């Protein structure tokens, strides 16, 4: 990754500043689910910061958002945390322990926590150790939260600082410490984020000005740029953060992987493979817990599944995504059994016990309504009401209609019902 200079020359040349800044990278987000891209961001940031000669990266924290965030298809915090835990396990083979920790504090709160407060909380632990005071006496952890003696990440941060102190102390004793002008020991959190988060600073409803200023001035940011967004230009234009451009590190030309969580969720819904986009252990978890509308037959990870059966399941699940079996006597309940051609599966109505060989094809949106799952792209429920999602929904409806029309003929009577017909 390339470390791009922020707009304008630095007023304070880096070379004149002998202190290397000790930082802990903090990333927030939904992690819905965690992907290889999320994890890669940390690796790239660490390498780039180290390379710049300005920073020493002590560690990283991932802080997933709480359920109260209210996003439509947000898996529960319990699931998201567990998937992250699996993803952050150290490599199975002998290697150093993970340097990225999973911060559970934000996720387990009842209310949504502004990012700035998450930074404050972990910084409080660092500051307490630096100054030798108890965390309760420092600012941070608002809302009357009890202090962080039991928070594993706070404990870990304090341990980092203790080690930092002892190492600094050891080197200071090497010379004549009375004459030595050592800069005071410091360590801080830095917000690691994608360009989309930086761009969201422009939306007045999302960020308090005071928070943006604090983040830029007191913490600093590492921004992973993506094509289509010019972070330097944004920093130039944004009054709130422009004074602190020294603290905003932009990494460009890093992105080798454009897979977002929403793309992964889409693929899961469609019965498409998401392998190699996120760790196997996370994919396995998603399928075991049937998250994100994934189809049970589509995880071919287990070698006991023959590719033939799995292929067949994938056909019926993805191409026939809209298949819902209805009782021949007209009961509204769904039939038990999976969405396979009738010739293969015996199906019984839960309500009246009737057997049925009929198939009714509805659009997937109608199916989702029946199931009570919210479709991913209902615009009025989106956090940001982005009209892109409208178009995606239109596209996915058209694609479903096309794929239904293209289905090969099934044995047994088939009744084809269009989306607009009333459901009775």
């Amino acid at each position, binding site marked *: 990754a390339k470390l791009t200079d922020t707009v304008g020359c630095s007023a304070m040349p880096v070379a004149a500043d002998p202190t290397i800044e000790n930082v802990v990278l903090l990333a927030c987000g939904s992690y819905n689910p965690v992907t290889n891209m999320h994890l890669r961001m940390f690796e790239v940031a660490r390498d780039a910061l180290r390379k710049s000669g300005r920073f020493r990266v002590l560690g990283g924290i991932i802080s997933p958002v709480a359920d109260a965030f209210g996003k439509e298809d947000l898996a529960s915090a319990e699931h998201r945390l567990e998937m992250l835990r699996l993803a952050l396990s150290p490599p199975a083979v002998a290697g150093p322990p993970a340097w990225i920790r999973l911060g559970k504090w934000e996720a387990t709160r009842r209310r949504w926590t502004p990012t700035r407060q998450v930074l404050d909380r972990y910084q409080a632990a660092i500051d307490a150790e630096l100054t030798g005071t108890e965390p309760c006496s420092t600012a941070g952890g608002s809302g009357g939260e009890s202090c962080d003696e039991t928070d594993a990440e706070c404990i870990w941060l304090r341990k*980092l600082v203790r080690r930092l102190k002892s190492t600094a102390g050891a080197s200071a004793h090497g010379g004549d410490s009375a004459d030595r002008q050592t800069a005071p020991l410091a360590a801080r959190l830095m917000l690691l984020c994608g360009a989309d988060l930086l761009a969201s600073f422009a939306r007045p409803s999302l960020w308090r000005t005071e928070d943006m200023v604090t983040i830029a001035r007191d913490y600093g940011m590492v921004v992973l740029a993506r094509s289509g967004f010019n972070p330097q230009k944004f920093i130039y234009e944004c009054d709130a953060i422009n004074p602190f451009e020294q603290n905003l590190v932009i990494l460009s030309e890093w992105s080798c992987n454009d*897979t977002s969580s929403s793309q992964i969720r889409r693929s899961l819904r469609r019965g498409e493979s998401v392998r190699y986009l996120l760790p196997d252990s996370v994919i396995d978890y998603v399928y075991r817990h049937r998250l994100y509308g994934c189809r049970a037959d589509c995880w071919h990870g287990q070698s006991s599944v023959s*590719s033939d059966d799995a292929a067949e399941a994938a056909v019926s699940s993805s191409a026939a995504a809209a298949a819902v079996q209805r009782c021949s006597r007209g009961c509204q309940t769904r039939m038990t059994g999976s969405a396979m051609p009738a010739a293969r599966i015996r199906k019984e109505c839960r309500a009246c016990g009737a057997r049925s060989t009929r198939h009714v094809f509805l659009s997937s949106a109608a199916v989702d309504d029946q199931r009570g799952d919210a479709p991913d792209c209902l615009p009025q429920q989106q956090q940001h009401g982005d009209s892109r999602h409208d178009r995606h929904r239109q596209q996915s409806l058209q694609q479903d209609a096309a794929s239904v029309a293209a289905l090969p003929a099934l044995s047994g009577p088939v009744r084809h019902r269009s989306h607009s017909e009333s459901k009775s």
Partner: protein
Amino acid sequence: MRYIVLVAGGSFNPVTNMHLRMFELARDALIKTGQFKVLGGIVSPVSDGYNKPSLLPSKHRIEMLKLALGRGGCSDGIPSSWIRLGTWEAIRSQWTPTRKVLDHYQRRIDAMLADTDEAQLNGPPDGKRSRIDEESDELAWLRSLVAKLRAKESQPDVRIMLLCGGDVLQSFAVKGVWQEEDMVSIVRDYGMVVLSRPGSDPHRFVHTFDLINPYERNIRLVTEWAVNDISSTLIRRTLQRNESVRYMLPDPVIDYIYRNGLYGSTASWPRLENFAD
């Protein structure tokens, strides 16, 4: 219904998540058409005779592929049930044109279907462990797949299809890279699944390239909407610079690279400064 075995060639120097992803995307795309079922996939790394400067010996590249596919024995990941390593091409001293690799696997499959498969009749050479044994692995697997298939269908149609990226397709137009008759044979007798990223224009290429245009229905073009741009070149460069390649290729492969000091990397996982626990 056509049963397909996807074959992908290349250096795999080293194998990356992008290579593996290519198989998954191709398979989904074929199945979605409703005309195919994908029996399996074969990764066929090029032999050392290919003579590329930075090409590691096939021994390493094969071992890394085994780890990536979860069959190296030390992986925590779940083995891929449908993608296998094909070593026939890699163990030959000379470079083998792609078309011949496809011919090889198709011939073996045809023999299995016609019950004239030699190894099946005579058994593998006994006694000493030789390179033939490695080859038997993927053939044994193919044999079992074909046998299962024949239990359901009397005359199954099993074809090899070439899996590749858009760059390989575009290389058809570069003089000296491909024999004309090979290109024709590939598109006429086998078919291709080509993974391209958005913005490239493989449709135009197929439209304007006279040699292959007659067989355009055999060339499946798949757009990789979620770009996964992890090239082996990028991996090698990153390793050389002692930077992290994590999450771009499977962990066991990274571990193997570090343990063997390949591609100019340091000998261990990058450690944090000794501040971290």
